[in-house]
């Protein structure tokens, strides 16, 4: 297959934000996750846990509560006091509405899905009516002394429980008055704490209220009498989150020590109908606070300060022992944060509020497999570009020639021209961007850096011609009539004739740039597209989907290629299909048209289409170089998928030229080192 010089880059200092809330939607099997920087991500649990949408964060918009309402509508509330509804089609914020109660700490949608309850800093619980296109304030409940940190509806919708500081209130929804006030013991292991914060409540249909608090307790209350029924002391630190299953036979809580506990309703004896809540399983998948938990029918979902989203399937609920039964830990976004200028060996790193431009080093030495070569020139940090304003960067791109950088936030689009004079670099902003270029979901430069393609969040695609220091709007492809779905992925052919664009669900559209018209649409597939690329010369479009399928579609012939049909007929190797991170980037070898390079977070693969395909009996991944084995074994091992797992977690990989690769890794240890220290637990012998 060949020898490569690999630029192994570990200086991309990216740290994901901690997870603040998770909300699971049973109907669509989707999970909404909000992070501490205000970003909201949507994961499709049916599509191999793919992160299919995201809403960029905002400095002043710390999300404290997140919930789904009827008709797949997503709401959040935060410390700026606003209730926000997200537009899941156009991928922008539909509206923000001030609740006028100070920071919002908690939120709950009524069981029928038509009313929204928010708990505010000033102790008020506010009821909103969800109308088809907005929400409308209805009334306030009795004002409480201190902030409302948690809310839960009774499944019948007649009562709610609200957790505050030191007590839980039960309200009658009709009258809006507090029926019970249940005081929580401040004592913690004999020591009286200053306050006991009720981080979470859950109201069950039998009238039981479950509360979790900062003293490490999980308590069961009888809401009819307002009395404490049972008390579990489970942690030495705060219990911060709770989620109950729809059947109300199990629930999950997360603690500040990083432990997640599973509670189940278990029969007291083998054949009696009397049941009681028993703490069954502890899970320690987190190192830091578990700020949010969710309970899907088959899995426990948790997330917290350590930035991992952990999906832990419940083995007794999983019917077939297949790959869905495996534990998932999602750390990195399922999109690219890095772009590369092949000509000048530059890497552009995208952070939440700035961009970094680096120039790769070089070497004159050669070596054999596994050698680290001495550097004749180290990598340089050329540029640190800070954004203005509180908005996070959505996307960014550097042109292949290295002379242009473009990036976009929710409200502004920026284009810069870079000039290189020997070792000096100068940056010049291209001003007066047209009004339609306000917000981009994806930016791409053509291979010769003369054109800029921008996918805006209204579903339109803009083509702009770049001239020395200025630009000219060439054309805009409007979205298909009736659809407003935004395009998230773009690919342009190296000869500059074809542009492919894909949204989250509909098929991939291919446009002819010369004639400025839609050329064809690749048939829609059940699973979202994770990466796209067009091969040089052949103009074959390679599409990777979240179920790990890879298709090759010939653009000129408007049909799938023979190779693609063959591999679909035979099926991918089972180990290939069992990988748990999506392919995020596809590229091609400039000299070898038969080769496709693609990578996910834990491997990269060069597919050699000329070799036979592996079947389930062949060894897919062989880390060892072939030794003097017999012909039988060599015959068994030679197949089209050449996989390497040396670089991980791999955030980006591309071919700089035919003999040079660049791999950007982000070791987990480096991320952990930048997180706040976890709660120190006394371990034996320390």
């Amino acid at each position, binding site marked *: *297959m*060949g*020898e*490569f*010089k*690999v*630029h*192994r*880059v*570990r*200086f991309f200092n990216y740290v994901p934000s901690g997870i603040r809330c998770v909300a699971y939607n049973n109907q669509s099997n989707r999970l909404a996750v909000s992070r501490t920087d205000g970003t909201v991500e949507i994961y499709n649990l049916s599509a191999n846990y793919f992160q299919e949408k995201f809403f960029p964060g905002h400095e002043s918009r710390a999300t404290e509560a997140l919930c789904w309402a009827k008709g797949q509508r997503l709401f959040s509330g935060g410390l700026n006091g606003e209730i926000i509804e997200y537009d899941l089609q156009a991928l922008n914020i539909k509206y923000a509405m001030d609740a006028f109660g100070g920071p919002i700490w908690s939120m709950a949608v009524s069981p029928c899905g038509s009313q929204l309850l928010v708990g505010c800093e000033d102790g008020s619980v506010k009821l909103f009516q969800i109308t088809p296109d907005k929400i409308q304030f209805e009334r306030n409940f009795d004002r409480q002394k201190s902030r409302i940190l948690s809310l839960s509806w009774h499944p019948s919708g007649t009562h709610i429980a609200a957790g505050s500081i030191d007590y839980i209130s039960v309200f009658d929804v009709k009258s809006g008055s507090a029926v019970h006030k249940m005081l929580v013991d401040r004592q913690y292991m004999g020591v009286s704490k200053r306050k006991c914060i009720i981080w979470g409540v859950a109201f069950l249909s039998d009238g039981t209220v479950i509360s979790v608090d900062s003293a490490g307790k999980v308590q069961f209350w009888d809401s009819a009498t307002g009395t404490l029924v049972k008390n579990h002391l489970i942690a030495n630190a705060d219990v911060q989150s709770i989620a109950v299953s729809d059947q109300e036979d199990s629930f999950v809580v997360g603690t500040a020590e990083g432990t997640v506990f599973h509670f*189940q309703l*278990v029969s007291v004896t*083998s054949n009696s109908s009397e049941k009681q809540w028993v703490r*069954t*399983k502890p899970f320690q998948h987190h190192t830091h606070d578990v700020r949010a938990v969710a309970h899907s029918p088959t899995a426990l979902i948790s997330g917290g300060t350590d930035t991992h989203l952990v999906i832990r399937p*419940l*083995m*007794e609920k999983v019917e077939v022992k297949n790959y869905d039964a495996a534990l998932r830990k999602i750390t990195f976004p399922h999109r690219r944060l890095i772009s590369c200028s092949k000509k000048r060996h530059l890497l552009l790193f995208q952070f939440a509020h700035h961009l970094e431009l680096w120039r790769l*080093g*070089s*070497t004159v030495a*050669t*070596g*054999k*497999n*596994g*050698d*680290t*070569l001495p*550097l004749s020139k*180290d*990598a340089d940090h050329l540029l640190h570009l800070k954004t203005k304003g509180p908005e996070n960067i959505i996307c960014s791109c550097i042109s292949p020639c290295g002379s242009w950088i473009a990036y976009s936030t929710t409200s502004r689009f920026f284009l810069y021209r870079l000039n290189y004079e020997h070792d000096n670099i100068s940056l010049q902003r291209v001003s007066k961007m047209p009004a339609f270029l306000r917000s981009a979901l994806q930016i791409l430069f053509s291979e010769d850096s003369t054109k800029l393609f921008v996918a805006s969040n209204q579903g339109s695609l803009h083509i702009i011609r770049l001239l020395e220091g200025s630009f000219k709007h060439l054309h805009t492809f409007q979205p298909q009539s009736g659809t407003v779905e935004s395009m998230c992925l773009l690919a342009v052919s190296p000869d500059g004739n074809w542009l492919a664009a894909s949204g989250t669900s509909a098929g991939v559209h291919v446009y002819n740039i010369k004639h400025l018209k839609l050329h064809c649409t690749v048939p829609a597939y059940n699973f979202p597209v994770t990466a796209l690329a067009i091969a040089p010369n052949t103009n074959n479009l390679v599409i990777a989907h979240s179920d790990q399928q890879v298709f090759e579609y010939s653009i000129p012939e408007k049909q799938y290629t023979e190779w693609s049909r063959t591999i679909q007929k035979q099926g991918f190797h089972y180990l290939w299909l069992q990988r748990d991170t999506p392919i995020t980037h596809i590229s091609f070898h400039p000299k070898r048209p038969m080769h496709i390079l693609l990578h996910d977070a834990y491997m990269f693969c*060069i597919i050699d289409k000329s070799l036979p395909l592996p*079947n*389930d*009996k062949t060894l897919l991944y*062989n880390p060892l*170089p*072939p030794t003097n084995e017999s012909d*039988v074994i060599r015959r*068994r091992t030679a197949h089209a998928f*050449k996989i*390497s797992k*040396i670089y991980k977690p791999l955030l980006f990989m591309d071919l700089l030229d035919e003999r040079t*690769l660049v791999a950007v890794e982000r*070791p987990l240890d*480096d991320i952990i080192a930048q997180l706040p220290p976890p709660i120190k637990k006394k371990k034996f012998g320390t």
Partner: protein
Amino acid sequence: MAALEEEFTLSTVPLGAGPNGLLGVEQSDKTDQFLVTHGGRTVILYKVSDQKPLGSWSVKQGQIITCPAVCNFQTGEFIVVHDNKVLRIWNTEDVNLDKVFKATLSAEIYRIHSIQGTEPLVLFKEGAVRGLEALLAEPQQKIETVLSDDEVIKWTKVFMVFRHPVLIFITEKHGNHFAYIQTFSSRTLSKYTLFHGQEEKSVIQNFTASVDRKFISLMSLSSDGCVYETLIPIHPRDPDENQRVVRSLLLKTVVAGNARSGVALTVLDQDHVAVLGPPLPASKECLSIWNTKFQTLQTSRELPQGTSGQLWYFGENLFMLHGKFLTVIPYKCEVSSLAGALGKLKHSQDPGTHTVPHFVNWETSRGCGFGSQNSEQSKRILRRRKIEVNVPPPAFEQLLSTIKKDSEKDIEVELCKFLAVKRTPDFHTIVGDIVLELLGRHTTEPSFYPRNSLMQLIQTHVLSYSLCPGLMEVALEKTDVQMLQLCLQQFPDIPESITCACLKIFLSDPVQEKMDEQTEILQNGFNADEQNCDSCDRKLNQKPQDAAEETTSCPVVPKRAALLNAILHSAYSEMFLLPHLKDIPAQHVTLFLQYLYFLYLKCSENATMTLPGLHPPTLNQIMDWICLLLDANFTVVVMIPEAKRLLLSLYKFVKSQICICSELNKIEVSFRELQKLNQEKNNRELYSIEVLELF
């Protein structure tokens, strides 16, 4: 509860009846797919849940398959043997068996075994075993003969034990059966003669086996209709010796005694076996599931069209011939246990292994039969089991009656006889009973104190405090320090109050304050170990010492030192010990502290911080006891003038210890930093250019 589900037929093609109809059913590398080898020429791969064949292969006319096809789990290929010597290896893609890989071997094959986690193993008819890879490398290699003339293999099976395969095969010669265990981790072959016991007349008809860490439990179905169990150790003490193993009755009359054909047996899990055969002489053939623990019939299914006496069990399916068709009966057994309630039952298991679930079910502390007595085994079983109390041998009854009325001398004689007999699994409980009986007579008849018998019983190494409560109390009452020392050394579960009472006696006993009692010690029968230790101490004492350091001479006589060492070795929990330590008189505390300090100084004399001797107290034990004594008695000790010097030196040594610890901590931190730097240098470089070759 074990249950059989609805049966279904796999092959629609009728097979020839009898063992020639079906050679075998074997697992393939995919779950739910099985290789069925028909006697004669065909191998069919079935997907059981779909009840349909996925592929079928035949050998040429004139060739005959002689052993069931298996799947090589490492490569996914299939292997079959035809005409005894010819190996064929093929893939699902291959169509014609004639054109696939072929290897002709130099000896006749009995079976090929293939299980997950290892390469296939080939067992030759002459008893030799080879790995497949090694055979294929040199197919014509010479295969040695292991079995004697007229000895034929009857049955064989392979297990994975600690990731290494273990192969067992049973041979028969002139009506005698032998078991061979071939281990591959140590490459040993051990032979056992299967001893039939009293049921000499019966003929063994069928075998099955399961494995349990150290033993293979071999079950055999005899012509008298009973199931017998034989425990064969996997790792024999002496592999060269031909050992005999005895079988014990496991289940009585599960099939009619006269059944000639259609009888088979297979282990399902720890407690269940499946038996194929007619339950009554006149009845139709039946598949029944028996619980071996409770000896109950769990469920059964009638097979009116008769079977061939072949039964296979994989995953959750039982395979057998019913009439002329291969029939599958799914079997489910849900164990009701707390582990199940807690969800721990769903612990992941290696794919393909179907043997026993590996959670611990505390109800099944299965005993072993009479055949394989092993002291380690019996020592481990601490609880007394009412269900399977073996009938005590007659010697026990006799001993008990002797204890009731005869003199101490007679009891000793009887006891010697009794202890000479081979040990049974419940030996420890019997010994406990004997001790209790002896103590019982002592309470009614205070002059009766069978010291020698008791000492002998304690030295059987099977007693514990809870097995014979009262023994140590009696010894304390009699101030029998020697017995107390023995108990302290032997019993793992002495309450802290008793340990402390012993300590009090050891410290206060005035008789032993003379140095020249060494001979008497020997007569008293002290352990040789202790003796060594003592003499070592003594030798150390005699070393020329600096006159100024008076503490370096041992403050107690060797005998008392030996007794105190026994205390230091005993197990305790601080919380329960502290209150009792407060009751020790101040002089004794001082003496003990002096002794401990002496030991500490001895410890610190060498670099490894250990004392000489066979079982000396460790430094940690010494330090813990010093702390405990001071914690309990500090206010008292601080008032005694003679303890002042000792306390001062202890204070000094604590200070020096703290110094050392802090210095060590500093060194550790520096080392950690160095290590970190080293690591960073190795793989935390932020940027490098490396060479990668893809193959």
